[in-house]
């Protein structure tokens, strides 16, 4: 019986060998059958190499099937096939070499190859080469994306090999860039890495920085004696300096068992408390242990008596630290590589700095245009008519709420904004005219009292808004084409809403200039501003002009409200958030002049962003410092940046 079986096996082996002539892949697999079935990360390397080294066209199919756990072994003869599930119990097997189906088999006759994740990762590395040169561009892109996301040095050769045959120009560019990045990070030849770094220096992409930064990772290490020559040392640190506080250095010693643990204040107290003996600790009465020297003395006595273990006190730290040398050491052994990486990063950071400056400038411009929009109405009412309108902020709020109400009726966001802007202008224009007629006109020449009266109107309007719309924030949604941002590169980006506000601010600057310089109303306004008595003698009705001017200023505030509401939540306090800044814009810029308001808004916007840049986490501090700066600025130019002179100044 035994003999027959042996004979059968021999025969089978002979058949196999015969087949090996036309099934080369199967032969390679059979040679490594044991290792493949019991695969592990440590042992599988040679197998994969063998499969790839065969250089057969089937290699990719085999590796893919293997990685996807679709490779099955026929129990009867130990051959490997690509298995395809037909139903729960049946699988159709396909031969790797011929690509032809071999037949359908019951699951019981087959054994599935189940490579673990480590093995699959290794197969994946081998596969990259094929995927990167795959005829299908989508597959090439997928492979590229996964490699970009998770770069590794093993794929470098495959990537280089695939570049020559790349036909898609977009993919080619990405491949070349990735090749440079991988060369920087993983090439075995330091010269090649340095060359790649020099080439990529000045590239502001996040990926370049992400590749360079790990190379410059340095770890704090302790040395008993001098630092070995072979070490690539970033810097030697002295304990107690800013970069290496004493506690950090000592903790490192403790961690490496080079020094006993430091006893903390609390621990010492607890140990003392545990050793209270008849109202005394180490011979010192408990009541006297309310100073540190007394506690240390008691602790020392306890140590002498052997009641507790000796521990380092803060005085002894110094002597421990002086025995060792502390240094930050690069993980990367080559000095030339780290130097080149540091240089490349430095040149990149210069570029990034420039980019950030541009970004900051754009931010500042958009903030300036918001302030300008908010202040342009004030520049008219306060600047031209010398009336402090404390309710100006509430006109902004009214405009924003108008936008909100319009959106309740017009669901299309684009249409609703187009409707809301003129409607907000109309509503606030009417409110402004009503206020001028009812209140302001009795208070010309009494600016302080007009301030109080308009403040009264301001709190009344604010409370009214609260009563109508509630205290919670209402959304004013921007049209979808204003979503997103205009991205120049990884550093510079600006959202479309801010661009729109900038354009709106420019538009209203134009409108204001047109009205003031080219229309009858503008002429009359300028006349009334300069000399109301004379203007009245010339047939101008000052009351009517004041009314219209005030209405115009209020109307623009309403439009500003719609714009501000697009990026800020609409609440009844929306206006009061901007009112002080608006006043300062006008005062800093210079009263009675639209260019002044523009200069003031620009200065405040740039200054606020500039201060925020120094301390980005703290916008409150930025505003505080900005106001202090403005108070000091007023010292030097009490009449603002653009001060009117001569007759136009009025007084």
């Amino acid at each position: 019986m035994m003999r027959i079986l042996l004979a059968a096996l021999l025969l089978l082996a002979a058949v196999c060998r015969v087949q090996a002539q036309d099934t080369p892949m199967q032969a390679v697999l059979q040679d490594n059958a044991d290792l493949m079935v019991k695969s592990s990360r440590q042992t599988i390397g040679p197998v994969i190499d063998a499969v790839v080294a065969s250089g057969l066209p089937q290699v990719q199919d085999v590796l893919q099937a293997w990685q996807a756990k679709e490779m099955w072994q026929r129990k009867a003869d130990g051959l490997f096939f690509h298995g395809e599930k037909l139903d729960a119990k049946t699988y159709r097997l396909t031969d790797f070499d011929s690509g032809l189906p071999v037949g359908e088999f019951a699951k019981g006759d087959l054994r599935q190859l189940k490579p673990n994740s480590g093995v699959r990762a290794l197969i994946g590395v081998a596969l990259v080469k094929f995927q990167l040169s795959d005829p299908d561009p989508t597959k090439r892109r997928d492979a590229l994306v996964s490699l970009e996301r998770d770069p590794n040095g093993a794929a470098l050769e495959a990537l280089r090999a695939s570049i020559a045959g790349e036909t898609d120009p977009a993919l080619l560019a990405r491949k070349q860039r990735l090749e440079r990045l991988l060369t920087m990070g993983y090439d075995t030849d330091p010269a090649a890495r340095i060359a790649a770094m020099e080439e990529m220096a000045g590239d502001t992409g996040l990926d370049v920085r992400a590749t360079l930064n790990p190379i410059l990772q340095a770890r704090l290490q302790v040395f008993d004696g001098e630092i070995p020559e072979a070490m690539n040392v970033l810097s030697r640190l002295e304990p107690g300096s800013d970069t290496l506080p004493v506690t950090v250095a000592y903790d490192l010693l403790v961690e490496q068992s080079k020094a006993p643990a430091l006893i903390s204040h609390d621990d010492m107290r607890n140990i003392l408390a545990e050793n209270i003996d008849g109202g005394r600790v180490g011979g010192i009465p408990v009541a006297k242990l309310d100073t540190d020297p007394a506690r240390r003395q008691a602790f020392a006595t306890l140590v002498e008596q052997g009641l507790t273990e000796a521990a380092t006190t803060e005085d002894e730290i110094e002597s421990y630290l002086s025995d060792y040398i502390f240094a930050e050491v690069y993980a990367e052994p080559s000095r030339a590589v780290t130097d080149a990486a540091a240089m490349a990063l430095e040149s990149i950071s210069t570029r990034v700095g420039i980019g950030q400056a541009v970004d900051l400038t754009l931010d500042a411009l958009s903030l300036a245009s918001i302030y300008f929009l908010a202040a342009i109405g004030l520049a008219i009412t306060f600047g031209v008519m010398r009336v402090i309108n404390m309710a100006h902020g509430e006109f902004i709020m009214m405009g924003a709420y108008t936008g909100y109400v319009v959106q309740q009726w017009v669901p299309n966001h684009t249409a609703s904004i187009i409707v809301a802007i003129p409607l907000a202008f109309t509503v606030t224009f009417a409110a402004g005219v009503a206020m001028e007629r009812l209140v302001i006109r009795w208070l010309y020449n009494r600016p302080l009292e007009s301030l109080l009266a308009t403040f009264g109107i301001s709190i009344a309007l604010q409370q009214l808004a609260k009563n109508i719309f509630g205290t919670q924030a209402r959304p004013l949604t921007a049209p979808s084409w204003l979503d997103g941002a205009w991205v120049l590169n990884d550093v510079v980006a600006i959202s479309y809403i801010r661009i729109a506000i900038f354009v709106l601010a420019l538009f209203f600057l134009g409108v204001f200039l047109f009205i003031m310089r080219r229309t009858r109303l503008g002429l009359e306004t300028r006349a009334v501003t300069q000399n109301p008595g004379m203007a009245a003698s010339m047939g101008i009705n000052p009351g009517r002009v004041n009314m219209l001017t005030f209405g115009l200023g209020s109307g623009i505030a309403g439009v500003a409200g719609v714009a501000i509401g697009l990026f800020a939540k609409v609440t009844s306090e929306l206006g009061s958030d901007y009112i002080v800044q608006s006043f300062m814009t006008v005062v800093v810029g210079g009263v009675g002049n639209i260019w002044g308001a523009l200069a003031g808004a620009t200065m405040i916007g740039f200054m606020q962003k500039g201060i925020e840049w120094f301390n980005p986490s703290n916008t409150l501090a930025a505003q505080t410092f900005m106001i202090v700066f403005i108070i000091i600025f007023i010292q030097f130019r009490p009449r603002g940046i653009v001060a009117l002179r001569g007759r136009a100044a009025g007084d």
Partner: protein
Amino acid sequence: MQRSFITRNPSVLIFLALLALFTLGVTVLSEAFGIGLISTSYVKVLGKTLCLALVAVAMDLVWGYCGILSLGHFAFFGLGGYMIGMWLMYERTRDIVVGALAEAPIPPTEQEIVDGIGTQIFGVVGSNEFPLIWSFADSLTLQLALVVVVPGTLALIFGWLAFRSRVNDVYLSILTQAMTLALALYLFQNDSGLRGNNGLSGLQNLPGVEQPQSHVSMWFLWASALALGLGYLLSAWIVAGKFGSVIRGIRDNEARVRFLGYSVETYKLTVFTLTACIAGIAGALYYPQAGIINPAEVAPITSIYLAAWVAIGGRGRLYGAVLGAVFVSLVSSWFTGGKAPDIPLGIYTVQWVDWWLVLLGLSFVAVTLFAPKGLGGLVDLWVERRSPNRHGADLGPDLGSLREKEASQ
């Protein structure tokens, strides 16, 4: 013949008498020392109102008499509160920490106590160390001195900067508003060292005092009444003399006073700084009664309210400021406290909690338009002191000396 200060200003005596009478009345009606008709919480409201009256007197001095519409005097008020609040909070937390550590087997060291206080106070802002500005928090004397010194110094620096560059009128108002906004924004930061948004709390508990709140609140009422009386007397004395004439002159025509040889800036600076100190004292008495102070207290709006009280009471007369502050804050607490009856209008019911601010705002407008003299004008009717008939609208204390035509030129 030189008449005495009191005979020239009978209103001072009347005011002090009324204040004494009020204090006596509250004491008799209080829970602690009398028949208990006024609850402790209402005693606190009255005590706080007296403090507001004191800061209104300061505001009247600087605005009604000197013509500087400061929209930042509540910054000084708040700073005074913060200064006393630091001591109250420190000492009270110290009591708690010492009590907690007394349980431990080993007596605490000084440093442990201080660390414990630091953790207790600054835990909410994620810190446990005392910032530099708390250096004197353990000394009542020094903190009391700071109540005057800190607002005074701020006012001195700010005023010196503003007045020497001749920032006037509405510009000055906006600048003072910017100052209080800057202070509020600064205090809102967690690392300002004054607990940011949380502010200082638990100030109603006097450290080392066993008596119940009913007693403590009465002490503060007396202290507030005393401070108001002294502050009123000081202000009345200042405005009655030559100094008062000069600052009224500055209000009415600054240029003319300057040409007469007076150092206008020095006068303004003196008044500004002095009133800041008075405001600081008022704040130091107010916040222990309120129990909590946070940066919202120095937001610009509070200072505008202060100006509105003085306007409603009648600026340019000290009792007017007191009248305005007391009237508006008491009426305000009556309306917002939900005690005012709702007005049903058929389809809509006017609830005063919601509508009180609308009414208040409109009454500001009404007062500035129709009654520039404010509530103080009613006193004129009472004593039948008639203004000279200047044939036109009444323009209030500053422009009131002019004819309407003159004023509007």
